[in-house]
C-alpha cells in the first residue's frame, strides 16, 4: 500500500453550513470522552503506527469531529486504517479516548450506509464478525479463507498472497483445522448480541 498524502490543505474554505453542530456532542457522549480537551498536540499521530498510510491521521479526525465536518470524518480512510492498538489513547496528555472515537465513527459510517474508506479492512471486520457469529469464537483459517473469497475483486496478487505461508502453518499445526465452538445456548446469545449492531445490515 502506498503512503498517503495528507488532505490538510482544503482548496475551498470550510463553510459554516457544512458543519453539523450536533455531531461533536453526539460523538463525545457515545465515545464517553471530552473532545474539547484536545490540544492538537499531535501526540496521537506521533504514536500512531498507521499514520503514514492515513489521509488525516488521528489528530486530523479529532479536528474534523470538533468542527462538525461529519461527512469528511465518516468517509475518510483513517477510521478504517486504525488498528485499534490504543496507542493514541495511552499517549494522549489530555486523556481523550481517541480509539473509542474511532470505534464510534466506524459504527456511524456503517449505520448511515456511507461508502467505507478502505474496503479490504472493512471486509476483514465483517469476516471476523461472521466467524464469531457462526462459532461464538474466532476460527482463523475460516476467517482467512472467507476474506480471500470476499476480496476476489482485488486482483490475482491478493488471491495468492500468503498462500504458501498459510499452508505451511496449517501443516505445522500452528493453525488448527477445526473450530472451537460455544455451546448452542451460548451461540444464540452471541448471535443476539451481534445482530443488534449496524454492521449486520451494511
Amino acid at each position: 500500500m502506498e503512503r498517503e498524502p495528507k488532505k490538510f490543505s482544503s482548496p475551498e474554505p470550510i463553510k459554516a453550513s457544512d458543519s453539523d453542530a450536533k455531531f461533536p456532542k453526539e460523538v463525545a457522549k457515545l465515545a464517553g470522552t471530552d473532545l474539547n480537551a484536545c490540544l492538537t498536540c499531535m501526540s496521537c499521530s506521533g504514536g500512531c503506527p498507521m499514520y503514514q498510510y492515513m489521509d488525516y491521521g488521528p489528530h486530523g479526525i479529532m479536528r474534523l469531529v470538533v468542527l462538525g465536518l461529519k461527512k469528511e470524518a465518516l468517509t475518510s480512510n483513517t477510521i478504517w486504517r486504525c488498528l485499534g492498538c490504543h496507542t493514541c489513547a495511552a499517549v494522549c496528555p489530555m486523556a481523550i479516548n481517541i480509539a473509542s472515537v474511532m470505534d464510534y465513527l466506524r459504527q456511524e459510517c456503517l449505520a448511515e450506509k456511507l461508502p467505507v474508506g478502505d474496503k479490504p479492512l472493512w471486509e476483514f471486520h465483517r469476516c471476523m464478525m461472521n466467524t464469531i457469529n457462526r462459532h461464538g469464537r474466532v476460527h482463523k483459517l475460516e476467517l482467512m479463507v472467507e476474506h480471500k473469497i470476499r476480496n476476489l475483486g482485488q486482483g490475482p496478487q491478493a488471491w495468492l498472497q500468503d498462500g504458501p505461508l498459510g499452508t505451511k502453518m496449517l501443516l505445522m499445526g500452528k493453525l488448527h483445522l477445526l473450530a472451537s465452538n460455544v455451546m448452542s445456548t451460548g451461540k444464540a446469545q452471541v448471535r443476539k448480541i451481534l445482530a443488534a449492531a449496524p454492521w449486520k445490515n451494511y
Partner: protein
Amino acid sequence: MSNYLLEASFFPGCTLKTGADESREPMYLALEKMGVKLYELEDWNCCGSSSGHAMGHEVATSLGARNLSKAPLGRPIVIPCPNCFRNISTARHHLIEDPATLKANEAEFGRINLTDPVLNIYDIIHHVFNLVRMGSYTLPETKPLNGLKVAVYYGCGAMYPKALRPAGPPRDTLERIILEMGGELITWPWPHKCCSAFASAVYPEIAEDMVSQIITGAREQGAECLVTSCAMCQMNIEMREMPMTNHLPVLHLNQLLALFMGVKASEHEKWWKLHLVDPRPLLQKYNLWN
C-alpha cells in the same frame, strides 16, 4: 484448604485455544509448578477480538459481560491475551460505570462477576516473584536463564485508555520477570510498538514494514530473541520476518517461564517445532536444554 498458592479463573481467548499450542501448554505446566491453578471458564465466547469494539459499542460490552457472567465468585480472572484483556477490562469498566447497561446485561446473562479482579498473565507471575523476593513463598527447583539476551516486547497490549490504567503503559513488569528468571535485558526503542495486528492479514507489505523496524531495532541493540506475552504478536512477527535475511526467534513469555521452572526436554521438545524461526540453536547455546 487447597494446596495451591492461588486459584484463578482462566479465559484462554481464541488464539490460545485454536492455535498457539506452544504457548498454552507451557503456561499450564509452568503455573502449576509455581502453585497457580487455572480453571478454564465454562463455555466462554470470543471477546470481540479487534473487530467487536469497532463494529458496535454494545457488542464489545455484551460479549465481555457474558464472559464475566461465567466466572465464579472468589477467584481472580486471568486473561493471558493482551487484546482480550483490554476488551474485557473495557467491558467491565462500562458495566461498573453504567448501571443501566449492567441491568440490561444481567437480565440477559444472569449475575455478572464484577467483584473479582481481571488480571493479565504477567500480573500473576510478577505477584508470585514478588512473594518469592520477600521470602514469604519458595518456588520448587528452578533453572536460571544464564543471561539470555532478551528484548522485551509488550506490543500494543500494554496500551490502555487512561480510564483503565491512569499511570500509562506498564514499564517494568515483563522486565522484572525476565531479570528475576536470570535473563539479561537490552534497552531498545520499540517495546510498545504495534505488530500490525489484523493489517498483517490484509496488507502484508505494511506488516513487513512494521516488523522489520521491530526486528532490526532489537537486533541493533544486541538482542538474541524477542519475548512477548501476546500469542498474536508472536505469530505476526514470525510470519512477517520470514522474507528478511536476518531472523530473530520470537519466544512466548510462557515458554521461558516453563524453562525456568525446569520443564524437561521430553515435554518441551514439541513446542519448538511450532515456530517458523527455530529457537533451538539459541536455547542450546545458552544451555537451556534440559
